[in-house]
């Protein structure tokens, strides 16, 4: 179906124009990224006609799911804007009012309500995607790529889900993990270190392609102390990656559970890991208990926050952050009643963290069908612009860098896109 037949399903153009005109100091390209993430995309048939599986990166194995509960591995992974900004975005059902990606004069453009907005590029497939490990596993099931990052997902199972209602309410990790098993049938539950080392070695042959690693997975509660087994998984993974480097440390990030100082010291001392992220998800203790019951029960909000702050002593200022799912602080029925209240509370708590050397970064909440909050709605574009500006302003105020999680190393946080100006 072409754009011309569907232009009436995208009525958000006025909201976009009115919102960005109220924020002349905010880059329109980043506002566009946010709005595309809020509403998702629809690729027209014409756009899909130029997608080439030999060249472009199609939707790979991932840790979180889709917007419409349907995984279509033949669709492009995501987009790049002309300023180098990534838009990590899922295809969205037409009744969700998505942006269109359409083919115009042989090039791809974002189109909304008849207006041709910006040219976009598809992500390109890294060469290692077509290779196999010596054990016979497709390397694209061992590691996945963003435009300049290698992702390693250690587990699609989160042990908080073992107890009914223990998983975070915005998260679909376990449901999505089951869903993609049928499509990515050869994907190992946890990649073996030898396969990781071999895949990374192959990936690094492509010059100018990658700048960092992100390693993540569901929480693993087992061990002598809580999370000890999860820590061991990260250590063996990072050591396998490290075989490929001449330096002791290499640009890398884990997005993991809230480890204690002994566990963090092990990670720092025994591996090349150079930054640490553990997600509070929502910056309010009451909402954390409601939205993240597993995290609240096993660690608790204040202890999770305290572990972040203690991690700064090990990894250093500017190398520790926490992710929040921007907008879930407004989830119904227990969230803040107004966007103003949600923003004020979030930035207030983010400032406490920044004072203590911890950066806060946000994603744009996509209510996914496989999550408890699947039928909710993300807040306005204006809210996200204010949130991104507020978090960026805190990094300016407290002179906090976020190099390890910026537009190039990650690309999924509008607030850290702004760090290009720092």
């Amino acid at each position, binding site marked *: 179906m072409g754009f011309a037949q569907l232009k009436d399903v995208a009525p958000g153009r006025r909201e976009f124009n009115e919102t960005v005109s109220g924020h002349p*100091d905010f*880059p*329109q*390209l*980043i506002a566009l990224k946010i709005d595309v993430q809020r509403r998702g995309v629809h690729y027209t048939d014409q756009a899909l006609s130029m997608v080439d599986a030999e060249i472009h990166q199609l939707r790979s194995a991932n840790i979180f799911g889709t917007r419409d509960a349907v995984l279509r591995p033949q669709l492009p992974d995501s987009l*790049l804007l*002309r*300023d*180098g900004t990534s838009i990590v975005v899922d295809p969205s059902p037409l009744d969700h009012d998505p942006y269109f990606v359409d083919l115009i004069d042989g090039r791809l453009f974002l189109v909304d309500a008849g207006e041709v907005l910006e040219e976009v*590029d598809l*992500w*390109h497939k890294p060469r290692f995607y077509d290779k196999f490990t010596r054990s016979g596993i497709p390397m694209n099931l061992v590691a996945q790529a963003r*435009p*300049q990052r290698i992702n390693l997902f250690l587990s699609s199972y989160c042990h908080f889900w073992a107890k009914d209602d223990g998983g975070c309410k915005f998260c679909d990790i376990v449901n999505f993990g089951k869903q993609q098993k049928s499509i990515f049938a050869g994907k190992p539950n946890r990649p073996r270190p030898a396969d990781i080392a071999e895949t990374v070695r192959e990936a690094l042959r*492509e*010059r*100018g*392609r990658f700048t960092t690693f992100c390693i993540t997975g569901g929480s693993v509660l087992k061990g002598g102390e809580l999370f000890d087994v999860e820590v061991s998984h990260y250590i063996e993974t990072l050591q396998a990656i490290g075989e490929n480097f001449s330096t002791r440390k290499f640009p890398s990030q884990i997005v993991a559970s809230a480890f204690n100082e002994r566990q963090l010291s092990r990670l720092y001392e025994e591996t090349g890991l150079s930054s640490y992220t553990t997600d509070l998800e929502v910056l309010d203790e009451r909402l954390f208990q409601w939205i993240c019951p597993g995290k609240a029960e096993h660690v608790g909000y204040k202890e999770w926050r305290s572990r972040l702050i203690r991690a700064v002593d090990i990894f250093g200022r500017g190398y520790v952050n926490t992710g929040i799912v921007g907008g879930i602080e407004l989830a119904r029925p227990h969230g803040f009643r107004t966007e103003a209240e949600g923003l004020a509370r979030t930035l207030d708590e983010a400032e406490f963290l920044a004072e203590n050397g911890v950066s806060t970064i946000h994603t744009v909440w996509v209510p996914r069908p496989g999550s408890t909050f699947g039928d909710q709605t993300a807040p306005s574009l204006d809210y996200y612009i204010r949130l991104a500006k507020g978090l960026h302003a805190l990094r300016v105020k407290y002179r906090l860098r976020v190099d390890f999680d910026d537009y*190039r190393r990650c690309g999924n946080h509008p607030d850290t896109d702004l760090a*290009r*100006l*720092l």
Partner: protein
Amino acid sequence: MTSAVTSGVAALINDRDTTKVLVTTDASGVPHAAVTDFVQCGEDGRILYFEPLESSVANRNLTASIWFDRQVSIALRTPADERFHIGARPLRALVAGPAFQRHYDAFRARFGDLDLATVWVLQPERVDDQDFEQARRRQAEDRPFFQHLDRIARHASP
């Protein structure tokens, strides 16, 4: 789009012996000038600026320029003392993909063990010949009030 850069000026840009100065402004309008060897003119008349340092002032300012649609300037001075000013606008920041990787290889082949953060694609909008003698003569003819009287006095002071 037709480029404002003639083939002659393009050749001067690509001449390694031409001195090039890139002038950018930050988000507040504060200017910054940097002498650079990393400017090239493509066959399509667009100018490429190869930025090796992600953290450089120029890289930050070019980001501000592409975000807020502001011009940058490039000043040229050739070994023969020809001088040009080029006003340009950032069109694209190449940071990934096959084109970026080709530039990455070529850049490192030429400059050695440098990284390449961004290839800035600049669209030239105007080129001004800044030959000083021509400018001086033009002002003398067109703007006769722009001079001090002692310079044309019958009995000029020594």
